[in-house]
């Protein structure tokens, strides 16, 4: 018995020693450096800490970029951490608080509180800026490499630039299977009625019309964002109208939208879609089982990876019967770079962003990741790039990036096609429209 006890304590002691040895030998984060003593990038050794979210093509590119950067600046070692996208916000916050990061990956500024919105919480990035945690990049030379509209839309707050945004994605388009269309004599739909007819033709031939990664929830309603876009091309105006009451989710125009969404959910989308995981959907489409796949431009590389010889195209979701109203692509600004305001390695961080923003490096990045470029000179040489090129002039930021819900609004206060059966519980357009508006109204009323 005594032996048991002494071995237990002995083991504990050994472990504690082992731990402290581990702690002592590994380098601690250089937060110990006094902030402000910015060593020039060419002098003392510096560890540049970069935080990114998981996105395999991007991460792969970054690892190569980091090698090249370290070769150019031999005294800088780049320590890049990868976290899952849904943890990025939390980890950004904790690492900024602990002053344990220099360059952060941040999504384009969006969902800002507008003057007509009462009693709403500012978005996370705004709180970061107001807390003084993001570095002001306004006068940095590399900012000029980017499209001024992109900088203004996605990286500016109160007239100052805090982020350089690296690219846009569109989420309101449809991928279509060229072979299946040709085999069934279906023309590429340019209006809603043509889309309905195309789906009917496919289903009569025993082919599923559309698929999406329904198990993750959002792919089904995001697939229908094109419908909202066709009905309400001015999405910022839509948001304002909803808040001020001039637009309601159960007025005549909205009812038209809801009817179409019901047809989309009930008749077009395949029944089993609710069980398909988000990452399985591109594979399913690429396997030729389904004619169309409403989704974002980010799926293009997955489709190509699944079946490189597969012939597909990408068109805006035709939500209107007027072809002219179907030429917009709605999307959002995706990843961007920002710098921690309190970083002790300011020079190195700025050099890092400058190197990244160099047109040659940026072009390589775009080729790897497939974003719609935010630098004027860059081109998207991939198949998705060619597909969206005709619509680029009509790129608009989507509703989702403007919308802020009033506090107290119910859970149905959104234009989601997935509220309809078989994905949700509603099968009557008027009932759902009234419910959606009621849920929204509840929030609007609560904040008068």
């Amino acid at each position, binding site marked *: 018995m005594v032996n048991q006890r002494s071995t237990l304590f002995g083991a504990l002691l050994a472990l504690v020693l082992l731990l402290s040895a581990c702690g002592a030998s590994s380098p601690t984060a250089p937060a110990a450096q006094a902030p402000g003593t910015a060593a020039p990038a060419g002098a003392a050794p510096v560890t540049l800490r970069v935080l990114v979210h998981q996105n395999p093509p991007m991460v792969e590119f970054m690892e190569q970029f980091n090698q090249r950067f370290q070769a150019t600046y031999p005294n800088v070692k780049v320590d890049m951490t990868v976290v899952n996208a849904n943890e990025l916000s*939390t980890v950004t916050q904790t690492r900024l608080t602990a002053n344990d990061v220099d360059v952060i990956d941040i999504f384009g500024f969006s969902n800002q509180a507008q003057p007509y919105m009462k009693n709403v919480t500012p978005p996370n990035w705004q709180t*970061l800026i107001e807390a003084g945690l993001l570095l002001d990049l306004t006068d940095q030379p590399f900012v000029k490499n980017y499209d001024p509209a992109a900088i203004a839309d996605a990286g500016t707050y109160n007239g100052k630039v805090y982020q350089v945004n690296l690219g846009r994605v569109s989420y309101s388009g449809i991928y279509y299977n060229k072979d299946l269309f040709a085999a069934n004599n279906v023309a590429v739909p340019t209006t809603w009625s043509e889309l309905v007819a195309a789906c009917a033709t496919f289903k009569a031939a025993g082919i599923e019309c559309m698929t999406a990664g329904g198990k993750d929830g959002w792919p089904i309603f995001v697939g229908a964002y094109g419908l909202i876009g066709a009905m309400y091309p001015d999405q910022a105006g839509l948001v304002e109208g909803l808040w001020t009451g001039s637009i309601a989710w159960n007025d005549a125009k909205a009812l038209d939208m809801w009817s179409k969404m019901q047809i989309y959910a009930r008749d077009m989308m395949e029944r089993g879609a609710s069980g398909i995981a988000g990452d399985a959907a591109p594979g399913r489409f690429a396997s030729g089982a389904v004619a169309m796949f409403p989704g974002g431009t980010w799926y293009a590389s997955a489709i190509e990876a699944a079946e490189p010889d597969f012939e597909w195209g990408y068109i805006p979701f035709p939500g209107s019967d007027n072809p002219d109203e179907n030429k917009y692509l709605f999307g959002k600004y995706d990843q961007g770079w920002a710098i921690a305001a309190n970083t002790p390695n300011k020079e190195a961080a700025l050099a890092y962003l400058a190197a990244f923003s160099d047109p040659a490096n940026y072009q390589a990045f775009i080729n790897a990741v497939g974003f719609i470029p935010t630098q004027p000179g860059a081109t998207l040489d991939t198949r998705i790039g060619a597909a969206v090129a005709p619509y680029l002039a009509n790129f608009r930021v989507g509703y989702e990036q403007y919308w802020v819900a009033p506090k107290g609004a119910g*859970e149905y206060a959104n234009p989601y096609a997935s509220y309809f059966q078989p994905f949700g519980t509603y099968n009557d357009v008027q009932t759902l429209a009234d419910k959606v508006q009621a849920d929204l109204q509840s929030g609007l009323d609560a904040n008068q």
Partner: protein
Amino acid sequence: MNNYHFGRGWARLAPYLLLLPGFLFYLVIMLGPAIATGFYSFTDASGIQGAKVNWIGLENYREFLFMGQASRDNYAALVRTLIFCFFVTTIQFSLGLLLALLVNQRLRGVNIFRTIFFMPVILGAVIQGLIWSLFLYPLGGPLATILGLFGIRSEFLGGQPAEAMAWVIFVQIWANLGITMMIFIAGLQTIPGDLYESARIDGATGWQAFRNVTWPLLTPSVNTNLLLNIIGSLQAWQLFLVLIGYRNGTQVLGYLIFAQGFGQTSGSVTSAFRQGYAAAASIVLFFLVLVIGLPVQYFLQQRERRILG
């Protein structure tokens, strides 16, 4: 307080001193931050260092409990949480006891069975969810295929809220049955074999032996399992996240709190952090669990005193 036999004077302090390290850890690591959460709940803190924090009193609570349709949705989530708790606890408790009884005998290969039933616990929530997502794949997954033989078609986790929740209940029980079973097994070990002998000699049937010997002497494990089951199922949300995601009509309170605090309610990744609000919501859940948990614990203590003296 029982009589202490191990010394007087300075020696009487031994239990206190040896208890101190564990208790200090608890105060610092658990209680301290929890109390801080309480304070946070009265502010509009975003959780970001250096951001302005304002004291707003009960405003967060008002928003969670009384503001608009959102509050009514919260109550619906509350009801769902209670339903979830009821089903999970009753079924998991009963099955756990059954399995422990079965596996506690001198049958060949019980080790293997015990390990099989405990495997989900070893794998953790994310893997449990992954396994069942694959198994319940509606388009040709194993269960879909089997049910297809009977002509039954189901969307499983993607189906209507009631069905989706039923599946989450099933997976939750499947995942945690091993723990309930192990605690019962440990408890069964404490029952002296000669008691069963005497019961048999007195002519007791299996059921009578169980009712008069096993069940009363299992009271401590019964208490442990009931308490842990009830508390655990009231707070559970991880399986919901992995199996269903954020879908109207299926959220339970734990998930709501996590989602609202960390901005996961829609597909957007830049929604606001609202630590103050999330803190208030978690305090509400805490009180719910308190209101249920403390009386349960009290009742269980009383029952134990009655049975075991």
